[in-house]
């Protein structure tokens, strides 16, 4: 009896804690949005973060995209061949990348490459009282430090996802056309004919944009909220990666449900 009561109490406590944190985080993000003026008026601040979050993620994003595309082509070719539709491999590769794998995998990579770095940097600035010093100099750290990072993430994520998809299609082309001998013309023309701009590409961009906002929101919040100690920053960094990954996958499902047109309803 006592055990059950204790369990319920712990569960309730956990839920209240989680809701409280969620509310607190939302309020924090609202404050960041309200303080975003400077990030655009002095765009050089955001440019610097675009470099760190975006440009420095290019290598891992391009290389991963290339490999994912190559694997997709290999796997797809085998299956499609059984149905005598091996030329459709281009469509398969491009559709999976643009609608799903591009935004999702790029999001997961972005969270572990750029999101974790943002959390660690902001957390360390807090630990070493740099944010406090900024406040005492009458400069709002939300406007000067957090908002530029947030917007850099929101801007760079769709671009990175697009690059991921382009590299993936290129990888698929390498494998399908150069390695497996699919006809070059069919590969491209089928892709062009089958992929709908709005249903495919626009939806993919919407996804990557939403993921970018979610990941950077989590990253800057965790950094700003980290306890000002070494362990505090370390566990905040881990939380960023875990929470972003869950957020990306859950949001992907929700967004896909909204975008789903398969039933013809």
């Amino acid at each position, binding site marked *: 009896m006592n055990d059950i009561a204790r369990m319920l109490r712990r569960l309730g406590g956990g839920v209240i804690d989680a809701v409280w944190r969620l509310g607190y985080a939302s309020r924090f993000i609202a404050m960041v949005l309200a303080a975003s003026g400077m990030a655009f008026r002095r765009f050089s601040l955001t440019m610097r973060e675009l470099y760190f979050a975006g440009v420095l993620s290019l290598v891992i994003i391009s290389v991963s995209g290339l490999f994912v595309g190559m694997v997709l082509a290999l796997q797809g070719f085998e299956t499609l061949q059984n149905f005598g539709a091996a030329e459709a491999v281009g469509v398969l590769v491009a559709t999976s990348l643009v609608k799903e794998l591009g935004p999702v995998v790029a999001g997961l990579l972005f969270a572990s490459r750029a999101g974790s770095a943002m959390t660690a940097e902001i957390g*360390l*600035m807090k630990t*070493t*009282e*740099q944010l*406090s*010093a*900024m*406040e*005492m*100099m*009458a*400069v*709002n750290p939300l406007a*000067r430090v957090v908002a530029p990072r947030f917007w850099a993430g929101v801007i760079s994520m769709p671009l990175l996802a697009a690059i991921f998809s382009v590299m993936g299609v290129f990888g698929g082309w390498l494998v399908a056309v150069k390695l497996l001998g699919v006809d070059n013309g069919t590969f491209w023309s089928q892709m062009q004919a089958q992929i709908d701009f709005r249903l495919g590409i626009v939806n993919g961009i919407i996804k990557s944009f939403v993921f970018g906002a979610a990941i950077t929101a989590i990253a800057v919040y965790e950094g700003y909220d980290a306890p000002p100690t070494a362990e505090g920053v370390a566990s905040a960094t881990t939380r960023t990666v875990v929470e972003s990954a869950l957020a990306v996958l859950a949001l992907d499902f929700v967004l896909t449900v909204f975008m789903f047109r398969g039933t013809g309803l």
Partner: protein
Amino acid sequence: MISPPAASDLVTLRDVKFGYGARTVLRDINLTVPRGKVVAIMGGSGCGKTTILRLIGGQLRPKSGEVLVAGRPVAKLNAEDLFRMRRRMGMLFQFGALFTDMTAFDNVAFPLREHTSLPEDIIHDLVILKLQAVGLRGAAGLRPAELSGGMARRVALARAVALDPMLIMYDEPFAGLDPISLSIIGDLIRRLNDALGATSVVVTHDIIESLKIVDYVYFVSEGRVIAQGTPAELKVSDVPYVRQFVDGETDGPVPFHYPAASYRSELMAEIDE
């Protein structure tokens, strides 16, 4: 009977009470900092000196009591007024708190770039001037990671006075400095104060150095001001607490130990189990 603060006082703390969570740090602090003076706040480690500076800067709000700066209650200002007030305050943080992604030069230039629209060549001259004053003009291009602790503190000092503030707060300006830079910084605090027509609050436990330069001293212990006076008064004071500080004795009214259960019972506890 509450009297209004004299116009000549820049900072007034009245019956200030403050604690972190359940732990009360400041019980009842009363002190005033007259305009144009250099005032020291002294006390043992952990007695709440940094906390007092944060209260003056408006980063913390007192549980009760009032903190007045230039006659205005800091805790009641809205964000905009608070920032306007902070623009006229400089604070040297205990550990420097330099921005690690910027050079020493850019750190000192930071408040100028944020709050003025001066052209870059004038900012350059102003920054070099401040760095020269702390003897680190040659280190302008170094990053905080390449500076020693004492050098970082001096850069932070240059940054704190970059905007020629009316109130300068120093948190442990003397800690970790060699004897020569010690008296240089001491001199500097005094000269900056007088040259800028500013008012300074120096938090320190270095009594020898501070008695040379300050106008007035407050001793804080257990959340209260327990002694105060001019350096001349303190040197002849017979308050045991002050004597302990002035003579540098380890044992006396200032405990070396953080409050704890008795040492003997803690050591014996394991054996008893």
